[in-house]
């Protein structure tokens, strides 16, 4: 099997975020591998391990895991982390022209790179913790005309039959969905517990190949990407006025009753 995992470097989700000129200020915050992508990397590793004669990922497994990411040069830091978990190699699409791309342009670039790679499965996290749109996996499936198996809480792959079955988990219930290869998957954070990179993994990752592509090396036109090609525009972004200072009291035996009095006054109880 050839598996691709789409990953993204994002501002640390524990850091305060700010806007700069209508887009997220990425320059002045720590950047990390998107939390939710770790589950996708882990799931890819588990799929390969379950179908490897050596029970390990890597060349001897007969399968491969390629990370695909779009972002600035510094995204190699996040890529190295995913490589140290055990992925085999990576492609980074990096070009100044891509700055400010919307989800539509991002999915276009990723789809073109995926198309060139002849993969059986593409695995994504459900969303990035920065934009939080949760639309790119569905857009990739739409663009590639591949099966969309998203929000998976369980994945079962049958490499011999070239088929995959997932349990889709959403707020409205669970569905079992199946499809033949190739398919685009997204996995929810409940699916597994991502491993910490081992020392061996970290050392091995230093030698793994990250292929950097610029936009010209994809088949996407520069007019289709970047801020100027975005199909939506931010009119303004204003800090929300701070919430007015609320009432704060220490419970001296009637805290619960006072709470209810507040709710009654606000017509909430």
């Amino acid at each position: 099997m050839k598996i691709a995992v789409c990953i993204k470097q994002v501002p640390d989700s524990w850091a305060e975020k700010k806007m700069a000129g209508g887009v997220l200020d990425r320059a002045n915050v720590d950047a990390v591998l998107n939390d939710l992508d770790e589950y996708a990397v882990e799931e890819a590793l588990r799929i390969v391990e379950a179908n490897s004669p050596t029970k390990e990922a890597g060349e001897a497994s007969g399968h491969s895991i390629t990370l695909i990411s779009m972002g600035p040069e510094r995204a190699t830091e996040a890529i190295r982390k995913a490589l140290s978990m055990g992925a085999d190699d990576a492609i980074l699409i990096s070009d100044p022209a891509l700055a400010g791309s919307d989800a539509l342009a991002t999915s276009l670039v990723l789809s073109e790179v995926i198309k060139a790679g002849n993969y059986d499965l593409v695995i994504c996290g459900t969303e990035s913790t920065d934009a939080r749109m949760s639309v790119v996996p569905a857009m990739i499936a739409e663009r590639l005309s591949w099966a969309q198996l998203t929000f998976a809480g369980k994945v079962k792959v049958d490499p011999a039959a070239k088929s995959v079955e997932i349990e889709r988990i959403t707020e409205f219930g669970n569905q079992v969905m199946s499809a033949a290869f190739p398919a685009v998957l997204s996995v929810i954070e409940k699916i597994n517990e991502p491993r910490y990179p081992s020392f061996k993994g970290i050392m091995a990752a230093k030698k793994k190949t990250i292929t950097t592509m610029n936009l010209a090396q994809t088949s996407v036109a520069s007019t289709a990407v970047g801020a100027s090609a975005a199909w939506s525009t931010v009119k303004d972004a204003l800090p929300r006025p701070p919430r007015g200072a609320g009432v704060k009291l220490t419970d001296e035996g009637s805290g619960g009753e006072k709470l209810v009095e507040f709710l009654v006054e606000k017509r909430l109880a």
Partner: protein
Amino acid sequence: MSSVIFLVDHSGGKVAKASGELATFAKSIGESIAVVFASNPAEVISQLNNISVDKVITATGDWDKYGPAAIADGLAQIIAAKKPNALLITSTATGKEIAARVAVKTNSGIITDAVGVDKDLITTQSVFGGSTTVHSAVTTGISVITLRANSIEPVAASSTPAVEEFAVNISDAAKLATITSATAAVKGGRPELTEASIVVSGGRGTNGDFKPVEALADALGAAVGASRAATDAGWYPHSHQVGQTGKTVSPQLYVAAGISGAIQHRAGMQTSKTIVAINKDPEAPILEIADFAVIGDLFNVLPQATEKIKARKA
């Protein structure tokens, strides 16, 4: 006049309250057209008479077999025929995926998780845990917008909209993934988390005992939420997690019990209209954004509040 189509969200034959919100937004923009994908549309249509709908388009098909890709096909075909100015969908996991595919199919821009949209199709989003308000607009194609539940009070209306049946052709690409079985979410007696007008959440401070949280939730008719610390510890199901990597809620009232209020959690609840916090730690960040904060033990405060509410209702 502008026309706006919106996707009617229904499961088990019951129309979601959020669909009434979409109708209200649609009507404020122009002609409000409800689109119903259902195997038994009559049951769904009968529930649209009390929301702001000018027209209903229904399509029957194997929606339960093919999922979001097929519904996106249907919407794209309806958009091509009817040429509306905008498509509104509720911001659920599935809703956003459908919107994503329609945006690609119709060469349209997309805005997700809006909390409002005005008559000029300018959206309002609340981002970065509610710390920033963003106004945006789609500039290409039709405006594909997903709106969070609880963004607006649905306007009740009395309407007998005309119903048009539309023949949708589900593409081969949308048939690649098939749904082989489905189980509806286990519904307790409590409202759905993202739709509830009141949410009571528990965190690390519960030490794994959610009984006082659930009791207060039931007294208030509220949904139960949990912080990541509580779901990671296995104290409460992951599906109830509120926060950056969980659900985003925006209820009239959010009660945070034993939750410190890390940015991760605030990202999922900071746009709640009224926030009440109970925490033993006077330094807990949640107290800074609460409209009403009690510094104390939730195991004392919550039961007392629950009893008082029950007594008032008795």
